[in-house]
């Protein structure tokens, strides 16, 4: 197994994931013989790290490429370019994007995913025992009896009765199914879990239950989460650090508190301003100016800064030059030419 990819700077020892200049272009095919007529740059030059034991939040509008990143890290897609480093439990570092199929299987014990749709992510034709036990069976962990015990334990862990082993998913509500998905993801004791819109499909009261469960599990097992969502309230609640995506690029990365209190990128500011708060007086006091226009077509990304057509602060430089993601203050990165000069408004912490 390759320990370290040839080009890269060594990984910081606190980091568990290091995404470096990752790119994913999907070909757009057309016509009768599937001619490629262009590329959708779902992920373009993305670089960020996730620290061990933290929750890294990824926010952005639909089509910003946030789900693709999770799938790239887990190698559900192959990278078009760049590399993704992962620190294994034994401390060795591997490049996920170049792993062979056999090594990949091995690595999947350590990284798992929780899906958005609790209905389509569980095979309706399998019992809980088969569903939650499948990763164990695949990796040949234990005898049948041991697997059964382990599944029962996992179910108990996520707050489901072990007697449910023989049931099929259709016997459960959306929130419960999401817990089954969590139990399945935990089966092999992973160190890293990507949660893709894990609570977006649930009702408010149930979402809160599951978020609490995820936090408890993180504490208990020292898990690292990549938490992907479009809900800024939720991402603020759960994340230690946050990345903001727009049109396949990271616009800003930083610690949650600092970023939300004082964003560095106009897009972050606009996103925060757009969130309607359950606070009528606050809403009336806040003069909200909605962001104009809509996210561009991913096949036709604007030149220069991709956000410039919607940005209130854009000038000629923004139209012409693509800004780099750069460190502005310690721990904060931003992809904006004018980050230093802008004085942007966030949400005041209470």
């Amino acid at each position, binding site marked *: 197994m390759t320990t370290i990819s040839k080009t890269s700077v060594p990984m910081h020892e606190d980091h568990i994931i290091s995404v470096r200049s990752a790119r994913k272009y999907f070909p757009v095919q057309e016509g*009768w*013989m*599937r001619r490629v007529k262009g590329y959708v740059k779902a992920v373009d030059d993305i670089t960020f790290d996730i620290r061990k034991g933290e929750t890294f939040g990824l926010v952005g509008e639909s089509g910003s490429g946030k789900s693709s990143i999770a*799938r790239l890290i*887990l190698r*559900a897609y192959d990278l078009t370019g760049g590399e993704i480093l992962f620190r294994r439990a034994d401390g060795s570092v591997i490049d996920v994007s170049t792993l062979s199929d056999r090594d*990949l*299987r*091995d690595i*999947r*014990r350590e990284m*798992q*995913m929780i*899906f*958005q*749709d609790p209905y*389509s*992510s*569980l*095979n*309706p*034709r399998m*019992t809980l025992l088969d569903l939650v036990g*499948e*990763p164990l069976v*695949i*990796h040949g962990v234990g005898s049948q009896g041991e697997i059964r015990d382990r599944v029962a334990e996992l179910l108990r*862990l996520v*707050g*489901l*009765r072990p*007697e*449910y082993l*023989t*049931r*099929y998913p*259709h*016997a*459960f*509500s959306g*929130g*419960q199914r999401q817990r089954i*998905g969590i139990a*399945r993801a935990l*089966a092999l004791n992973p160190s890293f879990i990507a949660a893709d819109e894990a609570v977006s499909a649930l009702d408010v009261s149930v979402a809160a*239950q599951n978020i*609490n*469960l995820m936090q*408890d599990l993180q504490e208990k097992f020292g898990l690292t989460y990549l938490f992907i969502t479009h809900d800024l309230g939720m991402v603020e609640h759960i994340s230690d650090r946050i990345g903001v995506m727009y049109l396949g690029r990271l616009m800003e990365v930083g610690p949650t508190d600092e970023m939300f209190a004082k964003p560095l990128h106009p897009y972050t500011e606009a996103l925060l301003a757009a969130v309607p708060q359950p606070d009528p007086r606050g809403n009336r006091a806040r003069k909200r100016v909605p962001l104009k226009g809509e996210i561009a077509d991913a096949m036709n990304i604007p030149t220069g800064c991709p956000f410039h057509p919607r940005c209130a602060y854009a000038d000629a430089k923004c139209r012409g030059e693509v800004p780099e993601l750069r460190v502005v203050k310690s721990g904060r990165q931003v992809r904006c030419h004018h980050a230093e000069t802008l004085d942007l408004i966030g949400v005041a912490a209470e």
Partner: protein
Amino acid sequence: MTDIHTLSPETLLSPPLAPKEEFNADASYTAKPRTLIWWRFRKHKLAVVSLAFMVILGLLALFADFMSPYGPNTINRLNTFAPPNVVRVIHDGALHRPFVYPLKRTRDPETARVLYQEDRTKVLPVEFFVRGETYALLGLVETNLHFFGVNDRRQQINLLGTDSLGRDLFTRLLYGARVTLSAGLIGVAFSFVLGLALGAISGYYGGWLDAMIQRLMEFIRSIPTIPLWMGLAAALPIAWDPLFVYVLITIILSLIGWTHLARVVRGRFLSLKSEDYVLAARLAGASEYRIVTRHMLPAMTSYIIAALTLAIPEMILGETALSFLGLGLRPPVVSWGVLLQDAQNLRTISLAPWLLAPGIAVVLVVLAFNFIGDGLRDAADPYGQ
């Protein structure tokens, strides 16, 4: 549904009136997918009746030699175009064991045609387990036992009448069912193999392979079915062994039918490929083989079975039509299409309308398969809304 009890601290302070946890053991929660499909299928009354009908017909066809009173090619010159016998239970106003009236033959002085009339004075009781022609049951046991018949050497029981050579139509119908039904099943099996293979490749791998297969299917669909069948069937030399011709005919039928199946299979594969649970299995480290066999195939089987069931009647209709036209199976093979050849001519039909009986059988079987297919299709996804 069921109750939740979380390990979150605040729910340790559970609401004062929260219901005591009860283990709600609804049978449907633990029922296997197959069971759920069967429960749903059961609600489709017509389909269930049709299924029963087909099972009975299948058994009749399988044991045709035992169930029929005569041999399929036994000629009786004295009994041509005999009308069907009616099985009765009342004789002279009194209840009687099942019987038929014997037929009296007279000759029309002008047309010299034989006319039949029931002789109401005599009774010909229907006997069970009678001795008759010798045959090999299932090709194994040599016997001459027949399920029913009459003990009279001069009289016959012809439930559906006889044809121009005096052969018993009921007997021939049962033997014909063997050929016609099996032609449908074998034809579907051929197109299933083709359709499944190409549809799966197309849907699973996608890309240019998919594009190629799609184009191929378009080509095949641009060929008018019946003329093509006719052309291919006409190309089969008369001299060939009837059994061989039979296999070739089913292959010809399936050549057209597979495109529909391939489309169904491809569509299922495409939609399943994008299901989250398939990705979930992949992320759990499942091999391609496991993903296909454990996750994709089980989810498609019920759809494929429904599509197959709906394809069988097409094959049966195809065989019947070809044989009817004289391009498919030929005598001495007995199939429903071959039997219907006798009913091509208006004069014959008006003389012996019972010769259309195989046509009725075709209609019933086609309808039955359609109903079963409909029922299966409705039940195929027991987890849908």
